[in-house]
């Protein structure tokens, strides 16, 4: 009885008693959610366009951010470093296509998926070799990203909103808008969707797979860079982000693997759910439940809606 009270009633009493804390927690959740959304967005982009589930998206975020900071540390001005990082990400996309994707055309999805495990490990080793394993500080102010916070009075307390988080939300919205237009309206966008449906069929109508893959991996690289900057500005640039990036998986489960809005909404749900769970229910279990709550939320969700929030129901044919 006591336990039921602690699980079912007490947390809500707490929420009611200190609404400012609730709003703060919700905000924290949304902000974490934006990051998950961004990583998931990179996944969706590549999955939509090549049917490849790119496990390496998380490490690409770290790699992009490290490259940026690393170049700046060499004394290169911030915006030149930014440009050079974009060039590096293009180089990465090019090499991935040439050395990994091209030899694996028409292999089953699971083989390509496992190849991205290999890519992940390679980039971890390479990144640590070049940049060292220590966390680095993002060059946020050099890139004119805002810092500090707005404190808003509310419910007799106050809620603190980091300016960088607001900037992140704005940038993400713009990026999603741009990507949606790109996919729907441009010739390359149409070609991308064709490739996602079937490699062979796309080849047969004269779409160049090589080109498409470089474009979409490059796009995912840019998304990774933006993610890396935003995340780095909030905390620091380190390889531990790699594990956090795995949370994009539950996000994708919620949002569906091919839906950009799904990735965004899924990310926000997971972010908020996780923070609320940790803050209000975590103490019951000895805290730290953030590490697995996202997966369990996704799992429970899957049992009721296997195709995700925005995914289409699949009719199996034989």
């Amino acid at each position, binding site marked *: 009885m006591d336990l039921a009270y602690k699980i079912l009633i007490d947390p809500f009493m707490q929420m009611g008693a200190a609404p400012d804390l609730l709003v703060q927690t919700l905000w924290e959740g949304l902000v974490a959610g934006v990051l998950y959304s961004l990583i998931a967005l990179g996944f969706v982009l590549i999955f939509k366009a090549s049917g490849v589930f790119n496990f390496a998206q998380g490490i690409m975020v770290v790699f992009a951010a490290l490259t940026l900071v690393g170049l700046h540390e060499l004394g290169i001005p911030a915006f030149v470093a930014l440009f050079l990082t974009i060039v590096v990400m293009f180089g990465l996309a090019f090499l991935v296509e040439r050395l990994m994707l091209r030899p694996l055309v028409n292999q089953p999805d699971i083989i390509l998926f496992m190849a991205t495990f290999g890519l992940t490990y390679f980039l971890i080793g390479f990144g640590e070799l070049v940049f060292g394993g220590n966390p680095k500080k993002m060059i946020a102010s050099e890139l004119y990203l805002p810092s500090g916070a707005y404190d808003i009075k509310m419910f007799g307390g106050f809620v603190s909103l980091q300016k960088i988080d607001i900037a992140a939300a704005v940038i993400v919205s713009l990026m999603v808008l741009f990507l949606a237009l790109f996919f729907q309206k441009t010739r390359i966008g149409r070609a991308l969707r064709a490739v996602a449906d079937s490699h062979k069929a796309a080849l047969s109508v004269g779409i160049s797979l090589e080109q498409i893959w470089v474009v979409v991996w490059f796009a995912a690289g840019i998304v990774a860079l933006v993610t890396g900057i935003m995340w780095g500005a909030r905390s620091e640039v380190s390889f531990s982000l790699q594990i956090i990036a795995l949370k994009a998986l539950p996000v994708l489960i919620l949002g569906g693997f091919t839906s950009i809005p799904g990735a965004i909404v899924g990310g926000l749900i997971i972010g908020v759910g996780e923070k609320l769970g940790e803050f209000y229910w975590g103490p019951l279990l000895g805290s730290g439940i953030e*590490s697995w709550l996202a997966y369990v939320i996704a799992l429970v969700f899957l049992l009721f809606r296997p195709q995700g929030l925005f995914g289409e129901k699949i009719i199996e044919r034989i």
Partner: protein
Amino acid sequence: MFYREAGQFKTTYQADQAVFPILQDRIGLAVILVGAFVFIPFAASDFFINVIMIPFLILALASIGLNILTGYTGLLSLGTGGFMGVGAFACYKLTTFFPGVNVIVWIFVSGFFATALGILFGLPSLRIKGFYLLVATLAAQFFLDWSFIRIQWLTNYNTSGAIEVPTRTLFSVPLTGPNATPQLRYLVILAIVTLLTWLASNLVHGRIGRMWMAVRDMDLAAELIGIPLYRTKLLAFAISSYYCGVAGALMVFFWYGSAEPGVFNIDQSFTILFMVIIGGLGSLTGSFFGAALIYGLPIVLKVGLHGLGWNILPATIEHLTFMTVGALIVLVLIIEPLGLARLWQITKQKLRVWPFPY
């Protein structure tokens, strides 16, 4: 030249359904077993046994476990580390509750705890497949990893949060703990791994193995020939987790001697998965190849680079290992998606007809 099967005629289906139908393969296996059981314990140095053989065997056992799930049944899992941890902690609790019972018994029993959790986290496999199932196994991995750290009962409230393996004996000779000799620990592990590999081999070559592979290759067709999908998948989860659990228990009791809770984290799951991919999906022999390669690679790198006279920091070796393993995975998948085991088979095939191409 020596690897020819000419003249070896099968007169019964029993002989033809044998796991190693070719005489040379059986001789080769016998040589390996004799070498492993007799030669190594007497001739090899403590260092070789401790640093090479013991880890290799344990990791190979875990790879067999994952291979049953991923290679044979086609269910991708990143929960291996978690299930190994369940075996280790179950064994620790059992042997502290009932110190009178021989620890080897508990090693075998602890696998069943992993089985129970494996089935639990396998339950969603009815409705979800592929990448989606990966999330279920990640849930298992992170939840179990968290439990090992947070539930202090599991470590008997040890203040360091780690488990120390107590000394356990057989006929008053220490098997585990600081006083156990490497030779004895090695022999126990070897016996268990040999037994379990033999059982797994029986399983995958019979009806159950065919059911697993049918589900892997085309689940809809499997269902239409009367294979119950759900039960088949759950059986794979159960048996796979058993192997991982036993491997985890062996790892802590016969290799590490003590375990920080972080030992069974996601990296462990990745390591075992890589062994399975590189060794060969759907091959027991491949599990041994994969374990040898992935575990041996950093050692070879270290010894090799030092041999070249380069003085390299341990951290750099680690980074190089990561890069090499990553590149190897991509390379193996490009050359032969079924891994070293398939390359080995092709080599044997070539040998059979050597010196002719066909």
